[in-house]
């Protein structure tokens, strides 16, 4: 039977046996996984929705532009509300007892420490009354309500279980290739 195997069969068998000798199943699966979802293969097979949005690790700096409890904080360039870092939370986490809205407003801000633009998500934290501290209304890149696609005068807590607005976070989603469009 083996004598009747085609050249292709023999070639595939030889390759498979060689592969099996050189690496275990786990390392093989790990390599395949890296090709499919990892950095090397992401450009060819972008399985994850934001796989090609570059991972972000914004540079740190000092002063008001890098203080999450200040309106001047670079991530707050388009914020419209109370900064959660002043309300018992942080720039990326809601205060205890509140729920992050699943619906949000996404814009870009420039980090002066590295000169790069980043995608920022301004999720509202919901379930308590107004925080009342660090009210910031910078709204860069925002548009009036009649241009609703880029308006942010909306209570995003409409998507939460309790609609009362408490404060807003400014989460870095990734590095942006360009500032948000001004059209």
């Amino acid at each position: 039977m083996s004598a009747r195997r085609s050249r292709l069969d023999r070639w595939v068998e030889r390759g498979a046996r060689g592969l099996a000798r050189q690496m275990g199943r786990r390392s093989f699966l790990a390599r395949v996984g890296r090709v499919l979802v990892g950095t090397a293969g992401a450009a060819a097979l972008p399985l994850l929705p934001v796989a090609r949005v570059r991972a972000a690790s914004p540079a740190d700096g000092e002063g008001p532009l890098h203080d999450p409890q200040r309106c001047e904080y670079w991530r707050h360039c388009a914020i419209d509300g109370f900064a959660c870092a002043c309300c018992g939370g942080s720039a990326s986490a809601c205060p205890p007892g509140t729920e992050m809205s699943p619906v949000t407003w996404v814009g870009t801000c420039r980090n002066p420490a590295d000169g790069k633009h980043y995608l920022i998500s301004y999720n509202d934290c919901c379930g308590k009354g107004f925080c009342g501290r660090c009210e910031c209304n910078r709204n860069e890149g925002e548009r009036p309500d009649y241009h609703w696609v880029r308006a942010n005068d909306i209570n995003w807590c409409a998507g939460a279980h309790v609609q009362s607005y408490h404060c807003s976070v400014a989460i870095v989603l990734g590095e942006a290739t360009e500032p948000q469009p001004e059209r």
Partner: protein
Amino acid sequence: MRRKLPAALLLALLAPSASPAAAGTAVPVEEDYVLHCSACHGLDGAGTPGVTPSLVGVGALLQAPGGRAYLGRVPGVAQAPLSDARLARLLNWVLARYSGTLPVPAYSAAEIGALRSHPLRDTRSARAALAAPGDADESREDASR
């Protein structure tokens, strides 16, 4: 005819037209999705039940008469602050990524330009009028909002 294929294969097929150069921009299509779609539909495209619609399976609308035009005229698409070429690239990518569906032919910049110049004024009625197979549940959900 709409074809159901693995999303990875579809995205690989789309790669030439989804490349930044093809749309005249250096911005990856995924970045356009994050900035212009994800705020409502989520990074996973699942939306928020009862608040914002899911994009998963939205490609079924391509089978309904008028569905192709609907997808280019729905306000979130038509009014996105993107060029026609980038918007066409984004819509094709969304359909491949979240529905495993390649529109045939793919949306072109010219087609998107024509469709978005007539954005829907009554989205809910237009959506209810589309009787996409297997999509009845979503239609009822939309109509109840």
